[in-house]
């Protein structure tokens, strides 16, 4: 009886298995797009008469030194930070997976050379590699996305390589070669899907890191140009407001959103790692 109920739950009420953290995260992403237009809020409208207003019904998270609504700015910033994290994660998982797959499938000298390249790649702390690149390109969203992607590429490359390497001599490969399947097809169609387990499980965690990293670069002035809103830049600009005017909500509201987002990504990653781990554990 209990078992039957359990089965019904897994087959029909699939939504019960979607974790709370993923729902909140999607709501947040969706909300960042629609909340400001719906409530007719503008993140850049200044109102000097209402500067440093404390959180109230009129201004949910108060206003900043220029009288701009902090809630509207936090939501507008969510678009920027989530967008950067999304684009950077997508780019790094794509390039990293391809590099790792090639290294693992080729084996021999190519594998060794690529592994050394990954070693060196990771020998410069990520933040500094980013600073170096941004020093040349100047600040901006596209350089920021590429920098965060580049920092994360070797992580995925290593993961995929270590799963690809044992498959290189699998009977499946030999069989495919004997039936004249091209090497590219063997690699991309037959083998690649089997090596993505840890990369996929790691993706949300890395997206969370990317949000924190984007905010970190924004914090030191290398993100979006003012008056556009971005969590890190808001925190950085808000420190002085907090210290001199006691306006704690200006840096802490975007800070709390940043922490919440990173935490949610972390939880989703945790859930996904368990799921993927369960599904594939027996197969390999």
């Amino acid at each position, binding site marked *: 009886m209990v078992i039957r109920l359990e089965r019904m739950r897994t087959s029909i009420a699939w939504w019960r298995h979607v974790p709370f953290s993923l729902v909140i995260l999607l709501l947040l992403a969706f909300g960042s797009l629609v909340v400001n237009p719906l409530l007719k809020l503008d993140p850049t409208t200044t109102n000097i008469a209402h500067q440093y207003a404390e959180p109230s019904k009129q201004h949910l998270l108060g206003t900043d030194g220029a009288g701009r609504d902090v809630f509207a700015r936090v939501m507008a910033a969510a678009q920027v930070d989530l967008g950067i994290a999304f684009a950077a994660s997508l780019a790094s998982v794509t390039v990293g997976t391809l590099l790792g797959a090639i290294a693992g499938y080729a084996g021999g000298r190519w594998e060794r050379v690529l592994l050394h390249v990954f070693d060196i790649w990771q020998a410069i702390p990520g933040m500094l590699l980013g600073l170096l690149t941004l020093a040349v390109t100047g600040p901006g969203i596209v350089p920021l996305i590429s920098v965060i992607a580049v920092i994360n590429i070797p992580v995925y490359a290593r993961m995929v390589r270590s799963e690809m390497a044992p498959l290189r001599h699998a009977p499946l490969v030999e069989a495919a070669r004997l039936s004249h399947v091209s090497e590219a097809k063997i690699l991309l169609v037959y083998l690649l899907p089997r090596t993505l387990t840890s990369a996929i499980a790691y993706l949300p965690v890395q997206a969370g890191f990317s949000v924190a990293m984007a905010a970190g670069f924004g914090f030191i002035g290398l993100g979006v140009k003012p008056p556009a809103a971005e969590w890190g830049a808001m925190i950085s600009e808000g*420190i002085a407001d907090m210290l001199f005017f006691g306006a704690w909500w200006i840096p802490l509201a975007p*800070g709390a959103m940043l922490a919440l987002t990173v935490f949610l990504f972390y939880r989703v990653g945790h859930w996904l790692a368990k799921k993927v781990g369960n599904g594939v554990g027996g197969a390999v």
Partner: protein
Amino acid sequence: MGAKAIGRRIVQLLFVTWGAVTIVFFVGRVLPVEPALVHSGPNATPEMVAATRERLGLDQPLAVQYVSYLKQLLQGDLGKSLLTGRDVVADLQARLPASLELIAVALTLAGGAALVLAMAAAARPNGFAARIGNAVAFTGTALPTILLGVLLLYVFYLVLPWAPPPLGRLGLRIAEPPRVTGFLLVDSVLAGRWDAFRSAAHHLVLPSVTLALSIFPQLFRVLRENMAASLRSDALAAVRLAGVKPYVMWRHYILPLAAGPGLTMLAASFGYLVGGTVLVEHIYSWNGIGSYVVQAIEAGDYNGVQGVVLISALAYGISFFLADFFAMRVDPRWGREDERHGHTA
């Protein structure tokens, strides 16, 4: 540990350093931005850019430039800083101790706390110390470094006025002790200046705790898992049955096994701190290489930025070398394990 293993690590260190240098060179030359423009700063006239191109040899082929770049670096020349007009090496000498002091205190705090709490948590998984360790680790994982810094500042400067204002390394009325090492804690002791020592320590608390919290979780988890696994092992059950005292058991059986992973994590944390200090120095107006690199970027000073990046990459490489070195001394299998698997985590 054999000299061969050390030699192999030194070769590895040199190789990785060379790689980092090469990356820095190519980022500066190959990205689709005119390097002469980058090197002459944002306000340069076309004539100045042309002069810079000639002076830096940017009209030469890339290979020639690369060789002369390597030669320059080997002579310890990192070029002139546009930001300060001085040699980058002199700037780094002036600024590095402030950051190193901060990082050293943070590493000591995090490493010491993680070691003690992990030992307690491994021995009693549901004990008080284990709960404290888990709570601190959770805080460090969930809160990004910038929020931690601002939050600590809010609580300990505005709400509870315990901490000094975030304006550098010393109180405004405290004269700096004569510079010997550049580490204020050390210099004030050497000069017998206890007021300066107290002020420097006071100013170090919040920034170093911020950094320490950001690296504590990984250190704590690695140490706890390792020690807990040792405690569960059959080998240790036998040791216990033989009536070995707890002190000897920890000193000779459990801690040496945790040394390798723990030290490797400590070295990795050092790399994270080098980046984290950029953020923390920005919050606390700390006059170290972290704020230097940010100012250098704002001034379009590529030499300054590459100086910081190169010195950090070198320090990061050395920290891994030292971690391996000490781990091999404590646990002779550490180096060989690496050979067998090709790569350690």
